């Protein structure tokens, strides 16, 4: 059943104001399914009733729950594979060179959903343990949704989630078996931290050497997307790198970043293109 136009307008406005995300037609079809658990858990009889509760602002937490339910949280370990190969082969070695004195790397998975992307990064470092032996690796995962961040922090995944992307040897190496799932091993967890945060909010004074923002900007309207790029640019080191999702680009979206000359899919803060690479001469 299709949700009425007026109801979907209310939901779209709510989602947009909280996250910048647009409710596209393809997602409109899923509204009912997406919200069915909210209805069930709160014993709300119909979607119309839910909408009127939202309009009346009867319950401050209801809006949060609705927004979380409407967000697309699809993710998996080593999603799309290739970008992780590119990181391991090109980007991380460059950064290792550029930061050889500090021996510290700060990485941000922006819009990390349930944490698979952040943990996949930790796995990359663990695979190359020799190189990173006495480095301080700080991986931050953030998402606007509290619910996914809770799950990411717990680091506990179903068998369905672990086998979607991981080889079995990786699973038994990086997870501990629990009664009802698989929990990320402590030595990986210690590299990763999670926080609830809206990407569109000011990001403060922090700095990152590498930022992954994949499959997040897709549904932002043009203005919000530009704003998001500005936020990302404000925290990336001048010789740092930005990685977007497959099929996402900065071209025509922002002037804050430019495509790396040599590495496909990697974007650099516009002012300074790929200096780390030139420095290494690799």
């Amino acid at each position, binding site marked *: 059943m299709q949700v009425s136009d007026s109801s979907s307008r209310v939901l779209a406005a709510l989602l947009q104001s909280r996250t910048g995300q647009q409710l596209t037609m393809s997602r409109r079809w899923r509204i009912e399914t997406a919200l069915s658990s909210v209805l069930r858990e709160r014993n709300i009889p119909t979607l119309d009733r839910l909408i009127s509760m939202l309009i009346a602002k009867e319950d401050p937490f209801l809006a949060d729950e609705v927004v979380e339910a409407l967000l697309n949280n699809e993710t998996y370990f080593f999603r799309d594979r290739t970008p992780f190969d590119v990181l391991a082969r090109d980007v991380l070695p460059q950064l290792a060179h550029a930061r050889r004195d500090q021996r510290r790397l700060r990485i941000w998975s922006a819009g990390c959903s349930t944490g698979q992307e952040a943990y996949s990064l930790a796995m990359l470092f663990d695979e190359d343990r020799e190189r990173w032996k006495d480095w301080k690796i700080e991986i931050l995962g953030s998402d606007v949704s509290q619910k996914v961040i809770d799950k990411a922090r717990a680091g506990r995944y179903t068998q*369905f989630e672990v*086998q*979607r*992307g991981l*080889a*079995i*040897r990786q*699973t*038994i190496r990086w997870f501990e*078996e629990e009664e009802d799932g698989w929990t990320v091993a402590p030595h990986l967890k210690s590299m990763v931290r999670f926080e609830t945060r809206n990407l569109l909010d000011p990001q403060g004074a922090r700095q990152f050497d590498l930022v992954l923002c994949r499959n997040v900007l897709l549904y932002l309207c043009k203005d919000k997307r530009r704003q998001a790029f500005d936020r990302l640019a404000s925290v990336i080191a001048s010789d740092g790198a930005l990685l977007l999702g497959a099929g996402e680009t900065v071209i025509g979206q922002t002037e804050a970043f430019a495509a790396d000359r040599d590495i496909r899919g990697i974007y650099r803060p516009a002012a300074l293109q790929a200096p780390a690479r030139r420095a290494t001469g690799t």
Partner: protein
Amino acid sequence: MKRCLIVDDSKVIRKVARHILETLQFQVEEAGDGREAMSRCEEDMPDVVLLDWNMPVMSGMEFLQLLRQSGHADQPKVVFCTTENDMAHIRAALDAGADEYVMKPFDRETLQVKLQLVGVA
């Protein structure tokens, strides 16, 4: 076209797996237990075996041991596909020469990823 032998005593599972594998462009054969699988392999070696653990006549584990001991150390690739989803079974399977491991229930994407990981898809 790569060839996959599905070994499972459940007809339903074989059907589901066959359907998925065919959409992944595999030529599919089926066997209902380890012994039948062994004779299929002797006739014509597939590229990959999707292997259940618990089966009558000959279990998946016995089949795998026999296969790997009979001069087929790396070929065909063997992907276990079983409800035995604990660490001990997984380790035992890898020790015996399995290449990948799918924990049932599975879906198309899982199977596809695993087949890519062993290099046949």
